[in-house]
């Protein structure tokens, strides 16, 4: 190996050195990221949250707000969040983001308390679709609407 390496020009040696650095870094990054997978995740869906969240531990629950599930009480708001498999009731009192509505993606931060999720904070999540309002109306009219209401 040494004989081969000394036969190479300095340029080749430096080039091989950089390739080795990049390969080692790529491998290290892959290992670190796969080890951290559970911690890099920003929120859990309603199906995972029971398994992932211990009692009274602060976690984030994300999903879509179920249609016709928003109820306003004197002491706040309650709504169902779903990942199309299971849904969970969220209770919250505080300021809601502008994009909060039924069918919208939300991420709520709080604690699991029995069957309900008590949120301290509600964030809206939107998808990567951008279009003018007229186009959205047209798609709804033609019945080919696939996005959120």
């Amino acid at each position, binding site marked *: 190996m040494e004989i081969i390496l000394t036969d190479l020009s300095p340029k080749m040696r430096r080039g091989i050195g950089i390739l080795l650095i990049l390969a080692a870094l790529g491998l290290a990054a892959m290992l670190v990221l796969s080890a951290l997978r559970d911690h890099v995740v920003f929120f859990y869906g309603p199906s995972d949250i029971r398994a992932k969240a211990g009692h009274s531990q602060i976690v984030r629950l994300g999903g879509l707000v179920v249609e016709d599930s928003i109820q306003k009480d004197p002491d706040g708001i309650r709504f169902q969040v779903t990942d199309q498999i299971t849904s969970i009731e969220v209770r919250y009192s505080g300021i809601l983001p*502008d994009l909060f509505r039924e069918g919208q993606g939300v991420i709520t931060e709080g604690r699991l308390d029995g069957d309900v999720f008590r949120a301290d904070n*509600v*964030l809206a999540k939107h998808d990567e*679709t*951008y279009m003018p309002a007229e186009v*959205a109306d047209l798609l709804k009219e033609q019945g080919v609407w696939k996005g959120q209401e």
Partner: protein
Amino acid sequence: MFDYLANPTRFRAITAVIFPVAVAVTVAALLYGLYLAFFASPADYQQGETVRIMYIHVPAAWMALLAYLAMAVAAIFYLVWRHPLADIGARAMAVPGASFALITLLTGSFWGRPMWGTWWVWDARLTSMLILFFLYLGYIALADGFERPERGSKPASLLLVVGVINLPIIKFSVDWWNTLHQGSSVLRFGGPSIDPAMLLPLLVMALAMLGWFISVSILRMNTLLAQRRLNVLEIREQSPQRGKV
């Protein structure tokens, strides 16, 4: 080809042609792009007028990644072939690149507040972008942290190469993990999920930022080259026995 370009005199002759073209493209694309972004493009069906932040935020983010990639390629040319011009290129691109990263973070924050309901969250996309900004700052500090600037070139170039690993993490963070940040709208499988009327201003603004980046990088490279020559002249003046000017 790289040996051909590595001659500073030839480099100056070539960039003297590219520079005015890049400036012209920047001015034209910026005027047209801003007109499209603020007046001639429609409001979004969900986000309303706030969507216009996208026309600054997204091209700046693309440029922040592209500038870093260009710097890392220059760093490899410096480390392997030892071309001083490649090192000067990376140094010249650092500040404009860092500006793009900062613009991305700030406009993203201004966009996140009304839409998501928060200025900042520690999700994978936002955090990896912040790390990119810190990599830029680290590179600038390392490259300029020595009394003789050439001494910082090697460690700073190595930092650039190491930091490349962050680029795919930024790009794919929204696919690999649950994030608050939405997925990619333009560079994605299955084609763009953005209306053509909004894609056009986005691309025109990206062209404007690319033109600005090229113009500023050329200016800064020429400045750094002049600075190096000045340093050499000063050293010769202080010790005339070492060489004749």
